[in-house]
């Protein structure tokens, strides 16, 4: 039983409850839509599997990676990050659809602050990524990747951080775009570079200078490195550094997203 000391406490509790109700409502909608858009769900699960099995197996025979790890296992953490990159950025930019079908307008005319809308959306995106990653982790067990309970918890933390950062990025871009044509631009100029420059498919230790610079600024690099550390026990940076950089990106992109939502036009 919670003890209510004064009317003010009760008022504050009600406020918090209403606030969390609103975030829950927005999150609930995203999750329900996620499970009902069957084709999107199937497609976004299938693509990483294709990479894991076709590229993974294809290069396995001809590529030798340090620590004599099988190439398929080597790219497994990268493929997890890939599924997060795709799901999170797409999820965020899907807000263009919400606007096209006026759903967003109906939310913006409700007494809900823009930062609450942003938070609800971001939670939706994180849930979305987590569900897809769970499927991949099961596939990982099948191909013989093993992880301890601690590694599992650590993986979830990294996935959630990366997903928050990239959903925020997607929401930011989506909030500025008015047409669906912008979608293609996001795929070419955001999604693919984020993925390819992250070292998801290759070790980042001995890269040419120009490429090394680009991988260093890519937030996904740190998630891939962290997951490699956690799952395979190999990494280029200390885990703490990876975590710190991801936290930093999350804060910056989260703040940017909230700002973009505040200035987004309702109609």
């Amino acid at each position: 039983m919670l003890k209510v000391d004064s009317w003010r406490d009760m008022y504050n509790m009600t406020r918090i409850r209403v606030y969390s109700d609103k975030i829950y409502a927005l999150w609930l909608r995203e999750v329900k839509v996620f499970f009902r858009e069957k084709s999107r769900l199937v497609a976004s699960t299938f693509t990483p599997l294709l990479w894991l099995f076709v590229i993974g197996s294809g290069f396995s025979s001809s590529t030798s990676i340090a620590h004599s790890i099988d190439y398929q296992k080597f790219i497994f953490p990268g493929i997890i990050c890939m599924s997060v990159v795709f799901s999170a950025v797409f999820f965020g930019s899907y807000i263009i659809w919400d606007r096209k079908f006026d759903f967003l307008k109906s939310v913006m005319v409700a007494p809900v602050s823009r930062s609450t809308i942003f938070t609800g959306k971001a939670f939706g995106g994180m849930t979305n990524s987590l569900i897809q990653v769970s499927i991949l982790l099961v596939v990982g067990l099948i191909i013989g990747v093993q992880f301890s309970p601690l590694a599992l918890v650590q993986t979830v933390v990294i996935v959630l951080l990366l997903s928050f950062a990239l959903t925020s990025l997607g929401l930011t871009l989506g909030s500025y775009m008015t047409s669906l044509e912008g979608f293609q631009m996001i795929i070419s100029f955001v999604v693919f570079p984020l993925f390819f420059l992250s070292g998801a498919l290759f070790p980042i230790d001995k890269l040419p200078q120009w490429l090394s610079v680009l991988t260093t600024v890519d937030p996904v690099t740190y998630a891939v490195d962290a997951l490699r550390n956690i799952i395979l026990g190999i990494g280029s940076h200390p885990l703490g550094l990876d975590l710190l950089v991801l936290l930093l990106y999350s804060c910056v992109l989260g703040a940017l997203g909230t700002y973009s939502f505040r200035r987004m036009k309702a109609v």
Partner: protein
Amino acid sequence: MTKRYEKLTAVDNLSLDIEQGEVFGLLGQNGAGKTTVIHMLATLLKPTSGSATVNNFDIQKEPDKVRTSIGIVFQVPSSDDLLTGYENLQIHAMLYGVDPSIREKRIQDALELVGLTERKDDQVKKYSGGMRRRLEIARGLIHSPKVLFLDEPTLGLDPSSRETMWKYIQQLVKQEKLTIILTTHYMEEADMLCNRIGIMDKGKIIALDTPTNLKLMLGGDIVKLKLKKHDSDITVLKNLSCVKKIESLDGYVILSVDDAKMNIPEILKHVEAESVESSSPTLSDVFLKLTGKNIKEHAEGGFMERYVQYDKN
């Protein structure tokens, strides 16, 4: 209140008082500025200059209080069509902070009011156009607002769905103590539903009155006669007190008459006519008179109409 876009003045120095509990209609062609007015009152657009209060809350200084006070039905249905009708209402009830203890009851009541209880667990994509609109109304009412905005509530509906919709709106007026502000370009809709009508043209309100008074502006009913003895009879007609105005057109005489039903027998006592026709003025006539434009000419070609059409394909 004024809203200006770069070169276009969408709403031009509009000033308006809407009484509590009335059904107020904004009537005008597409592009007259009706929706812009609604968007400003609903806090979705900031006026370029001026302001307004809704339920005594300032739209710029207290937007959250305004939002809690209003329900709104947009021109294009905005419910999520992957969710069921019930889920849409549930989510909106939470967004409006409807207390959990009464939430369920509010949802059931709203579904009942718009006749969607049977279909509440179907996804909205399986609803007809009319059902979607009704769901929007239910959604607009879920938090018991004081003011309900209906932006073209029957746009793109077939005639029978339109009549059903009117029936529900009229029922709403009876049951809930609401102020309703609706925009429309359908004359008969405004005539049937509204207590007062503001006719909008180019961002301005050019006439504001009850439907009856607006029609009276035209000076009574129209009587069209074909006379046997044209010239001499016109002189006779000019001396009758019930005849306000006389015009000749293609061999017919067109009269403006107070209360045609009562006065036609009187007129026919004095002149011999081969044929008689009479009609009461409609809001379309009023609109034509005020703007010099026929509202129906452009009614079907508007942007939203095309959008709805596109949406169906």
